[in-house]
Each structure stands twice: as C-alpha cells, then as structure tokens.
C-alpha cells in the first residue's frame, strides 16, 4: 500500500482536506469577515469536482473494504455536480445576517455528509457501507437543524435523527442476519451464499426498508415532508437530490452486486414499493400549498419512478436510473433554487404567493416552468428523456403494466405541476411578488440548472457515457 493508492480515494481525501482546512480558516477569521469562507469553500469544492473527472486507476483498498470503480467514480461526479449547484444557489441565503456566524459549519457539515456518501458508494462490505451511511446521515440532522432559532428547523432535525436512527437500527438487524446466514460481510463473499431462504429474504426486506427510508419510499417516507419543510430550503434541496440520489445508487449497487442471485425476490418487493410510492406520493402532492412540502411529495413520487429502473437489474436499468437521477438533480435544483431565492427575498412559500409571478419575475418563472415540466417529463426538456428511458428499461423486463401505471401516475403528477404553472401564468394577484434581482452567484447556480434541464436531453453523449460505465448483473 503506497501513497499512490490514496489517489484512488481522491474524492474523499480532497473533501476531508477541504473540510479540515475550512475548520482551521474559520477559527482564524474574525466574525465580520467570515463570509470570505464562501468563495474559498466553493473554490475548494469546484476543485474537487474537477479532480473527480481526471482519469484514474480503479482500485481496491483496505482489503476490499473500499473499492473504487469507474462506475462509482461516475456516480460521485454526478453527485458533485449537484452539490456544486447547491452551493452556488445557497450563496444568497448564507450571506444573510442570521447565518454569518456559522457559514463555515454549513460547508463543513455538508462536506462531511458528502464524504460519508462517497465512502458508502465505494463500500466493499457492509461495515464500510454502514459507516458511510451514518456519516452521511448524522451531519444531515445537524444541517436540518441548522437554523437553531427557527423551531421548525429544530423539529426537522429531531424528526430526522430519530427516524434515521430507527431505520438504521432495522437495517442493521437485517444485516446481522445476513452476516449470520452467509458468514461474511464482504459483498464479494455474500453474493455466493445468498439464496431465497426465509431468513435471508427477511434480512433483505429489513435491509431494503432501511434503504427505502433514505430514498423515502412509501411507507417509509413519512419523515420526508416534515423534514423538507422544516430544514432551510437549500438543505432541503440537498436532501431531495443528493442524499436521495446517493441512497438510490447504493441500493442499486448492493442489489446488483450482492443480492443479484435473488433478483426474483427483490424485483417483486420493489414492484410493490414503487407502485405504492408513485400513487401515495402523487395523492399527497395533489393538495399541497406550501411549495417545499409540495416538492417534497413530488420528489417522493419521483423516487417511485427511480425504482422502475432499479428493479430491472440490467445495464439498461442502471443507465436509465443514473441518467434519470442526473436529470432529476438539475430539474429539482431548478425548482428548489427558485423557491429558495423567493423565500430569501420575501419569505413567501405558499403557492398562492406565486400567483402572477410571470408578470413580475419572468425569468424565474420560466426557469420554474422548465423545472416542473422536466419533473413532469414533458419534452423537449431533459425530464422527458429521463422518464422515457426508465420506462424503456422497465418495458425491457416485460413490465408493461407497471409502465402503464407509472405513466398514468406521471399524468396525475402533471396535474399538480401544471397547478404551479397555472399559478404563475394564469392566476391573478393583487399583491404579486415584487420584481427583484438576485446576486451573481445565485444566478449562476440557477442558470447552471436551467442549462442542464435544457441541454441534457438532446446531448445524447451524456447518456452514452453513463451507459458505457454502467454494468448490469447479467
């Protein structure tokens, strides 16, 4: 094990270094000059994001506990992109007076969670996986409770930490049985000893429900709405895209790598979960007036779609899932970006406040429209392609009826997405939100997501790139 081996885990290393350095810098800075942290952090992260794309040898460390494959690296890069956008978008919010004391914490915590996710993604055994999972979720709780003066924020924090601890308890209970029945926690060993013996199926179900909590699948989703609403908007967007995305990747990896022999079991389980998730998520989203809760439920419904790709268990499925999540990152961040910008300026969160937005802030409105259309899967924006490929994947496994249910749900979801468009374009409003201009950085963040929504669909090379790196189980 020489020094170069550490290059294999460069994502994590760079992040650890940046987190620590931020900590130190933060100590050095005086309160009034703390906001200089932001550029430094952003630059550091951008650095990380770029380094992520440099070519590198895939490899295995710590006797297989940590393994980095091109696929995983690609997943990390996808997540990096999202996080970068989030950082840009949260500039306006961070520079507010209330936050100036704890800007550094924001970055440090966020980087830490990211480190956790990366370790989780590169995990070679359940131990590393569990470590990563917890490293990812515990700081998230702190982030959710970031605005300690807002009771809602604290409530979000406690709700998240309790439920996540609960869920990881159940997940671990499943893992313990897997260990008991297979005699190993190494993925490479488990895969040979796994079968559909009752105890193992039970273990798998416990495991899946633990992961389902992170991806917020019905019926393990109930925390989502409250936490999303309570947490600061930018954190919410982090929850909704990055942590959900990482969890889905992980679920997919483990199902494909470890539980591939029993695909017939988990395919049915995911089938049930995905139908439930799509339907319930949509039904809840229908009547939400608070934009954050609305997006929370819509993202639950989206998770249902993600399962379509996962349960196929083939290269096509994996590609479509990764591609969809990439698209979903951009679309959701577009929507959340607009919500957060407006919240920071006016503190308004209700859909009714958006009435007549187009007449005062056309650019934001257009971005919002693009975003919701992309979420609804309307061409020519990227969301359409993402959804279409997911459906293609599902159909490739012959799950036509599931596809049908899914598309019907997409239609239902279109209804409430159109409600937003309706509010912004059609509804009249005596006191519309005043016209305003955000700062450059935030604008850059919004622009980036808009560009993603627009280009990603037509830019087929992205899809092919993902496809070449994706591996199926068959």
């Amino acid at each position, binding site marked *: 094990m020489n020094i170069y081996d550490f290059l294999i885990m460069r994502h994590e290393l760079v992040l650890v270094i940046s987190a620590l350095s931020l900590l130190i810098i933060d100590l050095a800075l005086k309160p009034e000059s703390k906001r200089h942290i932001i550029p430094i952090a952003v630059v550091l992260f951008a650095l990380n994001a770029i380094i992520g794309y440099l070519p590198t040898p895939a490899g295995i460390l710590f006797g297989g506990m940590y393994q980095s494959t091109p696929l995983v690296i690609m997943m990390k890069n996808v997540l990096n992109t999202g996080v970068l956008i989030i950082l840009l978008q949260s500039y306006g919010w961070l520079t507010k007076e209330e936050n100036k004391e704890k800007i550094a914490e924001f970055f440090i915590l966020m980087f830490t969670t990211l480190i956790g996710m990366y370790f989780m993604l590169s995990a070679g055994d359940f131990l590393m996986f569990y470590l990563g999972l917890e490293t990812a979720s515990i700081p998230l709780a702190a982030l959710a409770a970031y605005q300690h003066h807002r009771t809602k924020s604290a409530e979000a924090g406690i709700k998240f930490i309790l439920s996540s601890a609960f869920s990881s308890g159940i997940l671990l209970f499943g893992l313990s049985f897997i260990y008991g029945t297979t005699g190993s926690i190494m993925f490479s060993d488990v895969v040979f000893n796994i079968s559909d013996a009752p105890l193992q199926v039970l273990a798998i179900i416990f495991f899946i429900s633990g992961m389902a909590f992170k991806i917020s699948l019905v019926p393990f989703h109930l925390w989502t709405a409250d936490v999303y609403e309570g947490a600061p908007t930018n954190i919410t967007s982090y929850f909704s895209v990055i942590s959900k995305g990482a969890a889905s990747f992980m679920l997919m990896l483990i199902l494909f790598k470890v539980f591939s022999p029993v695909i017939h079991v988990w395919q049915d389980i995911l089938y049930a979960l995905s139908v439930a998730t799509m339907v319930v998520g949509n039904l809840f989203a229908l009547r939400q007036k608070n934009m954050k809760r609305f997006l929370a439920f819509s993202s639950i419904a989206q998770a249902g779609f993600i399962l379509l790709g996962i349960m196929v268990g083939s290269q096509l499925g994996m590609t479509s899932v990764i591609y969809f999540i990439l698209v979903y990152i951009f679309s959701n961040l577009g929507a959340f970006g607009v919500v957060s910008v407006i919240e920071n300026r006016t503190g308004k969160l209700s859909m009714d406040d958006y009435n007549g937005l187009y007449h005062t802030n056309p650019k934001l409105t257009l971005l919002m429209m693009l975003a919701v259309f992309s979420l609804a899967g*309307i*061409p020519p924006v990227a969301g359409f392609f993402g959804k279409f490929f997911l459906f293609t994947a599902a*159909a490739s496994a012959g799950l036509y009826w599931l596809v049908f249910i899914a598309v019907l749900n*997409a239609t239902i979801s279109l209804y409430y997405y*159109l409600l937003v468009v309706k509010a912004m374009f059609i509804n009249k409003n005596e006191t519309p939100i005043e016209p305003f201009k955000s700062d450059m950085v935030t604008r850059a963040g919004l622009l980036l997501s808009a560009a993603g929504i627009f280009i990603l669909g037509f830019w087929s090379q992205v899809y*092919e790139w993902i496809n070449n790196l994706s591996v199926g189980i068959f």
Partner: protein
Amino acid sequence: MNILTLFVIIPVVTAFAIGFSKNMKQTRVVAAVGMGLQLLLSAYLVYAYLTERAAGNVAEMLFMYDALWFESLNIHYLVGVDGISVAMIGLTSIVVFAGIFASWEVEYLSREFFISLILLATGVYGFFISLDLFTMFLFYEVAVIPMYLLIGIWGSGPKEYSAMKLTLMLMGGSALLMVGLLGIYFYSAPDGAPLTWNLLEISKNTIPVEMQRFLFPFTFIGFGILGALFPFHTWSPDGHASAPTAVSMLHAGVLMKLGGYGAFRVAIFLMPDAAQEQAWIFLLLTATSVLYGAFGAIFQKDLKYINAYSSVSHCGLVLFAILMMNQTALNGAIIQMISHGLMTALFFALIGMIYGRTHTRMINEMGGLMKVMPFLSVVYVIAGLASLGLPGLSGFVAEMTIFVGAFQHTDAFHRTLTIAATASIVVTAVYILRVVGALLLGPIKNDHFNHLKDARWFERISTVTLVVAIAAIGMAPLWLSNMINVSLQPIVTKLSTATSTFVSLF
C-alpha cells in the same frame, strides 16, 4: 441542409425572433413572415415531391435524413416524407398561416401567445416528418403541451378547467401510447437482430401476433384519444369552446389529425393482424361517434360546441375509414383529414371573428348577420356547404371516397356500418342548415348588430386562404388523391400480409 429539417428549424427560429420583438406589431409581423415562409416552403415541398416521383423515384420515403442520436437504444433522428405526410404538412402550413392572421389582434401577452402557437406548430411538423417512433412521440408531446398555456391564458369561459381536462386526457392518451410504442420497440426485430425505432424497418418485420393483440389497443386508443375516438372525445367540446380562435383552428384543424395519422401510420401499419382481429370493436365505436357527434351537434346552442361535435363526427369518419383498411378507404381517410382540417379551421376562424363582433356565441341570440357582415356570412355558408359534403368542395371528395371504399367490403358487417355512416350526411345537413338559418338568415335579432363591421383585411386573408384551399381540393382532387394513392401502396401491401382474418359480428 435537409429540406424537412427546415420545417422544424424555421418555426423555432421564428419563435426565438419573436422572443426579441419589441411590441405587438413586430411580434405579429415576425410571426406572419415566418409562417409565410413555412407556407412557401411546403408549397415547394409538394412541388419537389411530385417532380421526384415524376422522375421515377419509387422509394417509400423521400428526402430521407438519418442521424444517430442515442446509440445504445438505436434512437435516430430520422425524417422522410411520402405523399401522405406531404399532404399533412401542406395542411398544417395553410392552417397555421391562417391562424396567425386570425389572431392578428391578440394584445394580452401577444409575444408569448405567438411563441406558444408556433411551438405547437413545430411539434406538429416534427411529428409528420418523423419516421423514428421515439422522435415521433417526442414531437407528439411537444405539440400537446403548449395547448395548456394557450387555452389557460388566452382562453375564455371555464378556461382553466378545460385546459387542464384537455391536457390530462391527451396525456392519458400518451400513457397508453407509451406502452404501445415500447412494446413495438422490443419486438421490432426478430430475435438476435438489433432492436430499432425505425418505422420502415419495423414494418419489414412482423410483430408476434399475441404481442400485437396486447399492443394494438394501447396504440390505437392512445392515438384515438387525440383523434376524438368515442368515448374519449369529451376533451374536445370543452377544450374547443374555451380555446382562443387560432388555437381552436390549429387544434381541430391539425392537432386532431395527429391522432388519425398516427393511428394508421403506427397502429394499423405495424400491427395488421391485431388490427384485423380487433377492428370490429373500433369500427363500432367509430361508426357510433360518426352519428353520435352529428346528433349531438343538432342540439347544441353554442357555435363552438356545434363545431366541436361535428369535428367528433368527422374525425370519427376518419378513424372509421382507416379501420376499413382498403386502399380507397384509407385514401379517403387522408383526404378527409385534410378537408376536415381546412373546413373546421375555417369554421373556428369565422366563429372567432363573429364572436369578436357580437360577443356571443349563442345562435339563439343572433340572426340576420348576412345583412351586416355579408363577407363573413358568405364564407360561413361556404364552410357549411363544405362540411355537409357539397360537390365542388373538399368534403364531398373525402366522404365519397370513404363511402365507396368502405362499401367495397363484401361482408354485411362492413356494409351495414357504411350505410349507417352515410346517414350522417343528412344529419350534418340538418345542423349546418339550422345554424346557417338561425345565425345568418332571417331578421336581425339585436339592434346593435346593425353597427357591426364586416371582415378586416387580415381576417379576409385568413379566411380566403382556407376557402381557396377547400375549393381547390374540391374541384380538382385528382392530383391529391393520386399522390396519396401511390404512397398507400406499401401500406396496403403490408396490410395484405396479415394472416389473421377479420372478425365479423354478422
């Protein structure tokens, strides 16, 4: 640059240009110029197509252009036209051109209005030129969505409700469609061979019959919903009633044709066996909607509702003819699409213009308009006569081709339905004359009508364009029907390969 791609590029460019226009005047001028170009281009396309054919080019599709898009899924940007698509493109250009002028005086958010209108047109053009199922579906949905904003923002009456209903029902249709298309894709090639979205490739291969049985209803109904297939037509009356003039024109005139076109280009063409087996169900449905729409129209009082129901009847006839699945009937179906597109667009244009003057669409509140606005009234009468199938106007050609074609079937089932369908020409006459009588003739009901002005210049452009087209087809239909006939050959041959036989009720 491939000529067909221009059909997508010009509108997009126009939309962008409109985005930069300063005021209403610039906006509409830009729109008019852009769509005028489009009209010329399609005229040229017709000419180029005919010369190509005359030069002995017997390829199934002309002006093909193929670009690989998503390699791993074998998705291409593949375009090409045959006589049928050329005809539909021509129709689209005419209607859009007329639509621009019909909405010359949209003041509220005029820029956005024209942009969405033209984007809708883009979708339609793209749909008609695509030979790749994926691209086709993409453009299909592109065409459907701007509808929501167009109706929701610029509409009248219960516009939010109608817009939402229309959008959701059409999207529900594309839900069915999605399943159908994916199924077709995964059986597009014999085992081992690479799958393809390419319409022509798929048509060379035979989809397993049991899969066809499963997929055909999805595909046909999916398209049928947009083609106002009974009982999935109810988006149409409300939608049309609430939509602004130009949108009703485009929607009834062109967008509903996507349904018929797709139903026969995709559903019938690729799955002839299932089509043969299940035709009887849909024949019953369509025959119903032919009469049902006509009878429904008799009772309506709102001009737009009357026209919406007559559209249900006429589009029902289109699907009816498609399901007859012989060359003549198919030919008639295409001509009927064009003819109905033109005349219903003309109707909606006139209704919009009349409404803009009288501020009512209730026929019992109007009367004697012939005196005050002779031009509009005469054009209305012409449209009416076209709609009830008067010789010399397009409607007659289409209907007669359909009836004669449909009657060539030897079995009682087809013929009984045909005769039932022919009965619609009487009912049509009834409601058309009812409207003409109540609306244009008779004494003037309302004094302030006396001060109303006749058509302005742009309205004249809009209506005359359509009237000329209608009359041209009606007087000299031969070239059109020949153009279509040639292109129908491969489809008919494909249909004749169907192994399974028609299931007749009696």
